[in-house]
């Protein structure tokens, strides 16, 4: 029988619980309330949103289509006002009364606001949700902000705003930052790193009063009399489980809502998950255990046996540029000893806390590469008596029988968290690798692991090594070229995360070794900048290969070939006449039909290019981009118009596709084909993107090639309508534009990220539409005919800058 489930709070924990329920095919009817006016999103990614590395859309975990597909009734922006356990109903704010069979509390936490005088002034906020984040994002270099609280959250807020140029002061009451995760020495190093980022840090500073003006915050007053002026004051001093509603309903509540190992509260029809929960005296503030709880809760509802077990936790700081790790317990206590290692020159600090020859805690700063190994020692309670002298140096220094540094990673359980920023655990990464993601880039693309702050890159590589065994080649990190040590992927990430919008900025920030790059990196950078910042970046012709700079193919004798566009392969007698006339007029020695059904005029002199284009333009033709790393042609068959087998108008679709996609720049050339039936006369199955029309709709395949490699496409998705086909192909093209390495054709890129990953992106309607929208945006800038532009405005550059033949004759 269908169970009626009501969920209070669309947070990270409840979202995960619903996923488990639906994945298991549970027969449930879900109503989801959320006080925030939106659905589930990845709250921990608010920091990258604040820092400008991500947009809100990118951190949404469940979108409207997902809710609809799973039949979830969404009541976002609506608070649950009360619960009547006897009647088994909840009452919404507007008075609606809804019955439930099972109720799930996922109400999270409330940020704690210190009740200082002035805490209710305008401009005093917490750091918890998108609204808070947006207020912080509105700050710029002209603003001053004070953050109270030097813990993880406060520092992320401070670093995020500092990255936007905001003048930020962190006020912390304790003697050093993050005192719950770090010892004094590591806290000192962290403080130094933050100060280097331009953040002012005041420790042992006691806030006394928040001063306002016209109801709005003006400054923070410390008890030593210091006044810190500010336009915004962020309080990030802690959270309290949000239990008011549960307590009113009469559930057993301590610090949080009491639950048993099955996540059931004191009422057997009511479960609770997430930060609002108290389990065996513990409350929770990190995602990893919440995800475990979510799974258990789903299993409980499904009637399966499951029990939530608390595990050892570790912390990594996400603030970019601060490599920091802590795990276990590192407080001083009787019977505990420390082993400390410092290398002030490199800013490296490591401390192990040992009790009875077992490591119980660790704090690392500056070099956290071995953190997985140390965490393993803690988790497994390894006896370190034998390696006591060298344990601090890490796995590489364990003499005798050499300790395999990978053994620790191999021993990690599947649910060990590897990437803190994104909450990705080892199992997810292993699955991705087994699904075909064969290197770091691919794992990053498929799972997002190590894609945010990157501190776990080393760990992810170790997981790769362990999973792939002999197949693993440690990325000899192929740099783009001799001008840099960075890979294409590294540079792409830098361009995005640091918002590098000019070639100079890339050279500067990525420490290029040459003055202005070379013929290998410059075209790649020019492409990446265009793809990522279509509106802001100005195309640099001098960083393009001659074919693209002069919009024609250079031939071996220095002449060029010219190919006008013929939409979908269709032409007219008038166009043919114009082409013939142009061939005569400019002494074109060879006229050839290309493999993509277009006409190629070969052997045109460089000086003549602007005039031959002008003539072809006059006849209504535009550049065919036969020279570009961009959309070349859409090859078509005759389809329903004439063919007795045609199921759809393949020519018409080819024309529409070519009109939608022409002019776009892509990592490599892009060729499309559309066939009207499986007889496939347009050879659509060996194109980068191919469409085969069938009775029921359109089969879209990708990754075909018929060049140096010959490959058949793999089926990406089947869709019913022409409109959908076009959106899918736009989205597909944009995904390729945003992710592939320059000069990788789709099939090469597909081999790296895996078809499944691509398919998931394209199958997800929200992601698909967002990709297509970004494609369209770029087209507003780049869909233009370069021939017309050059023939009119730049004809001069095709001519010699001076002619001395006459002079010499004198």
């Amino acid at each position: 029988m269908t169970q009626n489930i009501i969920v209070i709070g669309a947070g990270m924990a409840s979202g995960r619980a619903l996923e488990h329920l639906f994945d298991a095919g549970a027969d449930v009817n879900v109503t989801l309330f959320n006080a925030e006016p939106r659905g589930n999103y990845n709250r921990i990614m608010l920091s990258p949103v604040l820092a400008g590395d991500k947009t809100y859309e990118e951190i949404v975990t469940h979108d409207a289509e997902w809710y609809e597909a799973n039949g979830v009734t969404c009541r976002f922006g609506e608070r649950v006002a009360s619960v009547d356990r006897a009647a088994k109903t909840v009452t919404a704010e507007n008075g609606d009364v809804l019955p439930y069979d099972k109720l799930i509390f996922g109400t999270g936490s409330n940020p704690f606001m210190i009740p200082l005088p002035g805490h209710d002034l305008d401009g005093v906020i917490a750091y918890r949700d998108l609204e808070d984040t947006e207020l912080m994002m509105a700050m710029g270099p002209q603003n001053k902000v004070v953050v109270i609280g030097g813990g993880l959250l406060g520092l992320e807020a401070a670093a995020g705003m500092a990255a936007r140029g905001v003048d930020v002061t962190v006020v912390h009451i304790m003697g050093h930052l993050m005192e719950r995760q770090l010892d004094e020495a590591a806290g000192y190093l962290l403080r130094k790193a933050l100060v280097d980022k331009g953040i002012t840090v005041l420790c042992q500073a006691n806030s006394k009063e928040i001063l306002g003006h016209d109801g709005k915050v003006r400054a923070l007053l410390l008890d030593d009399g210091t006044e810190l002026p500010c336009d915004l004051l962020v309080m990030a001093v802690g959270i309290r489980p949000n239990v008011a509603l549960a307590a009113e309903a009469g559930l057993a509540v301590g610090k949080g809502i009491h639950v048993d190992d099955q996540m059931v509260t004191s009422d057997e029809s009511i479960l609770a998950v997430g930060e609002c929960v108290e389990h065996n005296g513990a409350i929770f503030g990190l995602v990893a255990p919440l995800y475990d709880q979510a799974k258990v809760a789903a299993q409980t509802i499904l009637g399966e046996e499951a029990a939530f077990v608390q595990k050892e936790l570790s912390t990594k700081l996400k603030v970019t540029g601060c490599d920091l790790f802590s795990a276990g317990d590192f407080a001083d206590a009787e019977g505990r000893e420390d082993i400390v290692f410092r290398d002030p020159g490199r800013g490296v600090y490591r401390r192990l806390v040992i009790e009875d020859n077992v490591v119980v805690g660790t704090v690392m700063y500056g070099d956290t590469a071995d953190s997985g190994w140390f965490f393993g020692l803690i988790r497994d309670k390894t006896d370190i008596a034998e390696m006591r002298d060298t344990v601090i140096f890490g796995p590489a220094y364990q003499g005798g029988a050499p300790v395999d540094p990978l053994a620790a990673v191999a021993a990690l359980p599947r649910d060990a968290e590897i990437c803190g920023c994104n909450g990705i655990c080892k199992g997810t990464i292993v699955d991705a690798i087994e699904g075909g993601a064969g290197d770091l880039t691919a794992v990053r693309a498929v799972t997002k692991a190590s894609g945010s702050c990157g501190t776990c890159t080393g760990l992810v590589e170790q997981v790769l090594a362990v999973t792939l065994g002999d197949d693993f080649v440690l990325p000899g990190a192929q740099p783009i070229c001799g001008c840099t040590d960075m890979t294409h992927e590294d540079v792409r990430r830098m361009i995005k995360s640091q918002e590098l919008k000019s070639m100079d900025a890339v050279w500067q920030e990525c420490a290029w070794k040459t003055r202005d790059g070379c013929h290998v990196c410059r075209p790649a950078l020019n492409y990446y900048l265009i793809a990522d910042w279509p509106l802001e970046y100005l195309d640099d012709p001098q960083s393009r290969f001659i074919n693209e700079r002069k919009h024609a193919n250079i031939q071996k004798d220095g002449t060029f070939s010219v190919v006008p566009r013929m939409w979908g392969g269709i032409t007219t007698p008038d166009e043919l006449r114009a082409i013939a006339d142009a061939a005569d007029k400019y002494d074109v020695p060879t006229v050839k039909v290309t493999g993509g059904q277009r006409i190629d005029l070969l052997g045109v002199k460089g000086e003549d290019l602007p005039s031959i284009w002008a003539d072809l333009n006059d006849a209504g033709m535009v550049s065919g981009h036969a020279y570009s790393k961009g959309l070349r042609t859409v090859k078509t068959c005759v389809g329903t118009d004439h063919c007795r087998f045609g199921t759809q108008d393949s020519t018409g679709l080819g024309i529409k596709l070519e009109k939608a996609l022409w002019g776009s720049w892509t990592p490599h050339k892009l060729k499309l084909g559309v066939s009207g039936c499986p007889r496939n006369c347009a050879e659509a199955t060996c194109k980068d993107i191919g469409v085969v029309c069938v009775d029921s709709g359109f089969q879209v395949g990708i990754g075909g090639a018929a060049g140096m490699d010959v490959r058949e496409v793999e089926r990406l998705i089947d869709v019913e309508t022409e409109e959908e086909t076009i959106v899918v192909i736009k989205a597909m093209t944009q995904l390729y534009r945003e992710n592939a390495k320059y000069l990788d054709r789709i099939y090469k890129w597909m081999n790296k990220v895996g078809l499944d990953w691509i398919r998931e992106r394209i199958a997800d309607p929200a992601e698909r539409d967002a990709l297509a929208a970004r494609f369209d945006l770029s087209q507003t800038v780049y869909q233009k005919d370069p021939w017309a532009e050059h023939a009119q405005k730049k004809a001069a550059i095709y001519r010699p800058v001076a002619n001395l033949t006459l002079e010499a004759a004198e």
Partner: protein
Amino acid sequence: MTDWIDIAALDDIPQRGARVVKTRQGCVAVFRTAADEVFALDNTCPHKQGPLAEGIVHGSAVTCPLHNWVISLETGLVQGNDEGQVATYPARVEGGRILLDTTFLQARTAA
């Protein structure tokens, strides 16, 4: 003896770009670097006569558009593992104008 002649404005050539000057003995490529230095070289790659003026200019070198040989604009020498040299001619900038030395240009067929 030198005989400087004004062939064009510096701005007629884009930074990191080149244009050709036609002479009776064939084309000479005039390059302008990012630092606004100018160089004049035969517009012919020693490999298979690729038109150097169409190449990508970087640092003080150009990459031939046909097969990516890299040629020093200062010496005309081919860089890296390949071998060969392109003739170079005196060139300079004065008051925003590019000057070439015609005596050298004309002497080149004789050489």
